[in-house]
């Protein structure tokens, strides 16, 4: 699963504002507006640069945030699945 590739859902332009560590983001597909934490935003910005594997995304979070190495992959995966349910990212053939 580490090699599963994630990408930004086509059509998401990531219009957002970051205030005091919190992020409000407009969902170009569903029209919803989300309140996201810093880690979620980092993942989205990373995916805007290009599709990435779970492993490389976990690495991005590790560099920016204080997450226990043991939990890293699990937390990253959980966050990605949360973003997937919000129609922001996807794990299909990217």
């Amino acid at each position, binding site marked *: 699963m580490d090699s599963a590739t994630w990408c930004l859902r086509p059509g998401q332009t990531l219009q957002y*504002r970051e205030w005091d560590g*919190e992020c*409000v983001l*407009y969902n170009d597909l569903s*029209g919803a507006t989300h*309140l996201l934490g810093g880690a979620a935003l980092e993942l989205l910005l990373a995916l805007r640069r290009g599709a990435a594997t779970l492993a490389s995304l976990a690495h991005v979070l590790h560099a920016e945030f204080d997450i226990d190495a043991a939990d890293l992959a699990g937390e990253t995966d959980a966050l990605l699945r949360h973003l997937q349910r919000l129609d922001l990212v996807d794990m299909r053939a990217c």
Partner: protein
Amino acid sequence: MLTAASPTVASLTVASLNRTALATRLAGPGLLVQTGPFVSRIRSSIGHVAEGIELLYGDYPLLAEDSFADFHVGLQPSGGLRRWYKPQVNFDLDGLVPFEPLPEAHAFPMLEWGLNWCISTRAHSWLMIHAAVVERDGCAAILPAPPGSGKSTLCAALVHRGWRLLSDELALLRPDDGLLVPVARPVSLKNRSIDVIRAYVPEAVLSRPVSNTTKGTVAHLKAPADSVARVRETARPAWIVFPKYEAGAATTMTPLTRTDTFFRVAGNAFNYSEMGARGFTTLAGTIERCAGYDFRYSDLDEAIAGFAALEPPP
């Protein structure tokens, strides 16, 4: 066939019609009146409506019969037997009847509620927030609040203590530049606040209170003439203040985080979702140029002082 720029000649106002002429026009082709960016053609054969308009709408521009109107509204008696027994009034927007009939005595409040409904369900060129808006020295305060928070009482008091009225119900934010567009229609007051404002503003012009409405006893306060005269003047938002009247409470102005303010304003908006991405950028821009506060008060004088003490954000 573009319209020419506004003529420099002073335009006619509703006050130029005497009582008979006003009633005749309302009962016949309709009265065309401008309130901010909206022109309404109002038709009604009901005395209460003519009375309310004569008392509270004198300062607004009166337009010629062949003008373009945004809303064609009617307040007419229900037909049939109801004409004679507990008469009722229907509100219609060009034949569309969005509400159940009300007792005829409620006809003027129904006009006000009806016009608010027309604007808030249709005027999607603006991001519309359910809020009062007042302005002073070039800076505007947006007061979003669900019913019962005391926003209208506070608004009525503020506009008689140096603040300009933009609206008591509808904050209209222009997407292009984030400025607030005034409507400056009468301020609606309920229950206790009617007496409070009568005492606080002895010179206030109030419509005859109507009791037993779904909101209790309701009256409308005439908008200050200066506010109506300046209705074309937009305003820069500087503060977003969520008021809450609490008997006995000390006056407190508590800062809010930007994200808190964002979602609370969105929750009070009429058309945040309909405005899509533009709604997001308009609201985000407004949050960034404003300071947000929770405001608790019980004493009007202290509340006015609290607002006077607000500093424009850097």
